[in-house]
């Protein structure tokens, strides 16, 4: 069975690009447009990885990371945070929240896949 990844971003462009890249590499991709939506999409379904943007309406990416970390089913699911330009502050905030790692936007498809390989079991 192919691995499932949930891509969370309020920008459709970003979702499309992440999804396109991952599907091309054989992943199954779920999409959500903000943190709350992501939690709804997740439900109790097992996913192998969550990739989330930080700045989103309703529930931002860091709150989502915290929610995932305290979730009975998903607490050990890796979560990658999408940040722009290697912003050290954002990275450490992400880590504090419990993120597994980060991807710096804009990313090349290969880079995204490389990072995904690094955290996706």
């Amino acid at each position, binding site marked *: 069975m192919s691995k499932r990844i949930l891509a969370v971003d*309020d*920008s*459709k*462009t*970003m979702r*499309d*690009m992440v999804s*396109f*890249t991952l599907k*091309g590499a054989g992943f199954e991709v779920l999409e959500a447009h903000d*943190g*709350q939506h992501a939690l709804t999409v997740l439900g109790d379904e097992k996913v192998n990885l969550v990739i989330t*943007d*930080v*700045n*989103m*309406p*309703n*529930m*931002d990416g*860091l*709150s989502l990371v*915290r929610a995932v*970390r305290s979730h009975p089913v998903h607490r*050990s*699911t*890796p*979560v990658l945070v*999408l940040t*722009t*330009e290697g912003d050290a502050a954002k990275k*450490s*905030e992400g*880590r*504090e*929240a*419990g*993120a*597994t*790692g*980060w991807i710096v*936007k*804009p*990313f*090349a*498809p290969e880079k995204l896949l490389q990072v995904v*390989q*690094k*955290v*996706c*079991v």
Partner: protein
Amino acid sequence: MDDFEQFKSTFFAECSELLADLENDLELLQGEFYDKETLNSIFRAVHSIKAGAGAFQFKALVKFSHAFEALLDLLRNDEIPVVEAVVTVLFHASDVLAQMIELARDGQEPESGYGAETLAELDAIRFTARPADAAASANAASPDAALSNGEDAPDGMTTFLIKFLPRAEMFQHANEPLLLVREMAQLGQLSATPSLDRLPDLDTIDPEQAYLSWDFVLKAACSIQDVEEVFEFVVDDAELTIEIEKSEAPAAIEVTEESALPAGVESKNADTRSGRPAQVSSIRVDLDRIDRLVNMVGELVITQSMLSQQTNDMPEERFVPVVRGLEELALHTRELQESVMAIRMQPVKSVFARMPRLVRELATQLSKKVRLEISGENTEVDKTVVEEISDPITHMIRNSLDHGLETPEERIAAGKPEEGVITLSAEHRSGRILIVIRDDGKGINREVVLRKARERGIVAPEQNLSNEEIDNLIFAAGFSTADAVTDVSGRGVGMDVVKRNVQSLGGRINIQSTPGAGTSFTMMLPLTLAVMDGMIVAVGGEKYVLPITAIVECLRPQREALSRLPNGLELVQVRGEYIPLVYLCRAFRLNGGIQNPSEGLVVLVDSDRFGRIGIVVDELLGQQQVVIKSLEANYDPVPGLSGATILGNGRVAAILDVEGLCEDSGTDLGSAASIQGASRAHEVATSQNETREASQ
């Protein structure tokens, strides 16, 4: 990154929405009714634009949106107060951003230095609050500097000695050592020695703890940065040392854990409240698909009306179920058509939302005080109409502010409140949208308007015009009442262009003015450009469609009301006004059309350049909603026709273009244009004769 090319159109569509939101939110910032979420939302809009721009490598856009975003970040974190001066800069920045996006969409690079001024303004505000950023920004000029001071790419193999002791936090962050080992193994030859020293007995083992550690030896043709990158996400959650094994100068680079971050740092953005209006769940659909759908439904409507026309002749009692079925089909078809049209409907809000800002800026520029009142911004019209009304509305508001409203001093002198009011409203009225722009200014100065019109030869010196006609002169080509061409009015576009644009959309525009009390522009537009209410007329056995909007009235003139000028131009007298006639049968060279208007019908229509015209037809067949088919797309443009439609009997009927028709019926009408408004026959005759004499 070419794989991503296909997402550009999504990106630009998203940008349009984000820019509209941005504009809206910035408007809110001006008032008192904004909250934290407004700032967050502004930040997100710019942030999303930046991220997309980065993906498509629009470098200028990235650079600008970065500075914009950086300032917004400080604003939303209360590091800089939201004051008017800052908001003004934000507005400028949003303009530059919109412009840059437009250029990017057209595949162009902005000129070097474009937006530099605004960029400097953004940075100035930011750096005043955060001097450290200025230094960082200066350093950022050489972003690759950090990369060059490591190991140079090694020619041969390097041996790395890596000690790796994960802590429990690493697992809590869902990092997996096995994957790191796998990644290292991809770099080169890897051997691993696990250490089980810290592993307790099974009965005391805590499954949430980390007990294992490893010593790795990696022989690889890579730099130490490559190895460090493998552990990028875990350096803070593990004890890690990476050394290069070299006989001389063992350059050890130790990556130790950072001192613990302050505990309990709450995210500043943990704002999960849903204070914003509930989001409408929506999907984005390519416009082409919708157009195809609209087209198909159009075909369906035609087929349906063909079917029902044919069953009209059937003996109803014998085919009751068929007739019932067809009636139902008609009902459902109409509903389907309405629903499909509704897909393309959008509120005029996106256009109206831009106006407060326009008014504010103009008012400052003109030193006038004005309040803009908007109503009906949720009125919906077809997307194409929304796109087209922006310019006319902008222009009319500009006009009202520049020419209509007085200065505060003048207003006080006239006994009016110092602050002028411009109202902009939209509403649905009888299947059309009515947009009214009203000001409480000084109204149109008819003396000045008439004098200018005479000076410019728009009105003949001896012509007497009614107040309404004088008011409407401001729509005449080449007319501008501004004594001095100001920044505001001198844009090279006159009200005549506005009127033409509105008419090309199948709409009408009117002006009413009361001296001293103000002026109002009324714009009536169709809700959609895909269907139209048409009057089917018959001429010489052919059927044509006249847009209902163009029709003023229909009449069968008495023989006495008809007259002919020496140059052959025929006129009909209607309530004392002489109106030139155009024979459809002659215009389209049809045989058998009625040649005497008193036996047929005259349809009075308003044309832009030729004023009121009477079109002579055989008979009126009735009013019908028709689906507009493009002639250009399916055949060739034909003068006098704006399109075609398919009638219930399956035959094609041409849709008349009043303007083109008048133009095509010869130069006679051209001279007739100058006689519009003449109220007596001899005046007409005289002026025609003069024209003739002058040209001889």
